């Protein structure tokens, strides 16, 4: 046995002061990869705009109009369809589902939650601190996407979309991740189901509501779109309309409700093993 004491570097200690900072620290690599990958993909697609606009023959089938894949001729329309209408929101949904499923379920599966919750940390506090880390990750991803867009804005002839438009779109993107993150976190907290189940259900709800938002006009159920987060995320056209209180508040409110219900159930159930 060698001497004990300061074997642990101080920098590590700084990150282990609260559940929030520890969760951030534990996820720093994953969040970085998500941010870089999402931003890189968005940038790649956005940079493709000059070719698409030159080749306006791009015909969009009527069936796909609901997804926003129209008006490829102008910059906002292209971005709303190819970049912020398909790839990025699906990535955001998976970020929320995958990260949300890890916030409570994964540690309950392993038994680690027993240890933390035997400490002076209330269940609600644990849930909120874990979620805050997820939210910080989501904001970082959205910020990376925004920076990527601003970087290619002039080079890819996207100047028709204002910086405010991009910023509003990034805020909607962050809120979408926060919403699905809250769904995954709340599902795990409320049910105590295994991580894989929570991820699967959250992702399935995400994909189904994405499809519903896209196909609703086709099946004559336009009203249903308002029940999906994707309507508020993209159907309110943040790229051209900028910041609007309604979609922002709706997504934020839905997130708060999910978290509140999750915390309420979490506080009332047995922890599993």
């Amino acid at each position: 046995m060698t001497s004990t004491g300061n074997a642990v570097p101080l920098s590590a200690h700084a990150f282990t002061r609260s559940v929030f900072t520890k969760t951030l620290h534990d996820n720093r690599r994953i969040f970085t990869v998500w941010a870089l990958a999402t931003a890189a993909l968005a940038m790649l697609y956005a940079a493709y705009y000059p070719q698409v606009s030159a080749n306006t023959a791009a015909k969009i089938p009527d069936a796909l109009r609901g997804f926003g894949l129209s008006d490829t001729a102008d910059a906002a329309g292209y971005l709303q369809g190819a970049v912020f209408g398909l790839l990025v929101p699906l990535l955001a949904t998976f970020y929320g589902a995958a990260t949300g499923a890890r916030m409570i379920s994964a540690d309950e599966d392993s038994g680690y939650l027993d240890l933390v919750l035997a400490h002076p940390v209330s269940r609600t506090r644990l849930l909120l601190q874990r979620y805050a880390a997820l939210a910080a990750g989501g904001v970082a991803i959205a910020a990376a996407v925004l920076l990527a867009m601003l970087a290619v804005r002039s080079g890819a002839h996207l100047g028709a979309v204002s910086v405010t438009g991009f910023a509003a779109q990034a805020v909607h993107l962050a809120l979408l991740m926060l919403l699905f993150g809250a769904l995954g976190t709340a599902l795990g907290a409320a049910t105590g189901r295994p991580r894989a189940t929570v991820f699967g259900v959250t992702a399935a709800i995400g994909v189904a509501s994405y499809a519903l938002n896209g196909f609703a006009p086709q099946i004559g159920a336009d009203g249903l779109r308002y029940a999906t987060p994707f309507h508020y995320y993209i159907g309110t056209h943040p790229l051209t309309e900028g910041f609007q209180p309604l979609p922002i508040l709706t997504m934020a409110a839905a997130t708060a409700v999910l978290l509140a219900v999750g915390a309420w159930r979490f506080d009332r159930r047995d922890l599993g093993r």
Partner: protein
Amino acid sequence: MTTAIELTELTKTYSRGRAARRGLDGLTLSVRAGEVFGYLGPNGAGKSTTIRLLLDLIRPTSGTVRVLGLDPRRDAVELHRRVGYLAGDFVADGRQSAGECLAFLAALRGGVPAARIGELAERLGLDPSARIRSLSKGNRQKVGLVQAFMHRPDLLILDEPTSGLDPLVQQTFLDMVAEARTAGQTVFMSSHIMSEVEAVADRVAIIREGRLVAADTVAALRARSLLEVRIDFAAPVPEAEFAALPGVTGLRLDGTTLTCHVDGAPDALLKAAARHTVIGLRADTQDLEELFQSYYAAA
């Protein structure tokens, strides 16, 4: 306050899946402040169930729990501040080093002097720089022990604390428990093994199938145990002279050798034996372990 833990008619039915499973069945038990309390029972008896109820990790189906005068559910945060808990299967974050893990858990408690953590780690022979994932079961258990003891809690709740520890470390652990008692802390520890609890516990409870089978001081339990007697005579003796003696059970005569159990005073047996020539005499108190086995097995 003289009662550290007070369980009244505590019942826990697990309802996951279709079949409801009885984890505890009307358990009433009280642990005094300042004592070391051993909680024994066979696999599946309900020890971990009781302990997780004490910590508000699960909630009772019926009955009440008071710990340190607090309601585990309503006063969870306040209670956890004053309790040190070691789970039956201690799980920590494998990515952290032992030192990081302990620093994090200490931070959740508002801080514990690093010297205190270092002293406990050193005593148990735990290397704080080792990654938890890479630790052996016993060394991981040491991390669990350090985190339970480090903040000198009023109450230590330890679920099979010695599992995986080598005999030397087990002894160190027992010393730590004895010191905790000297310092006025209460210790509630579960185990499968009587001998380990016997060494430190003031009182012992034995549960089986969610019910209390016995609760008493170790001395009283020992007093309940039988004397095992073996007498060698110079010549064969008639069985009839010994069979009806008060307190004598399990009598066996094998030529010139008599063996039996004696409950209570051995006076009558000795006087009966003295009528013959006794060439050998041996009397042992029944092992507490054996007594304990009989509690385990009793239907």
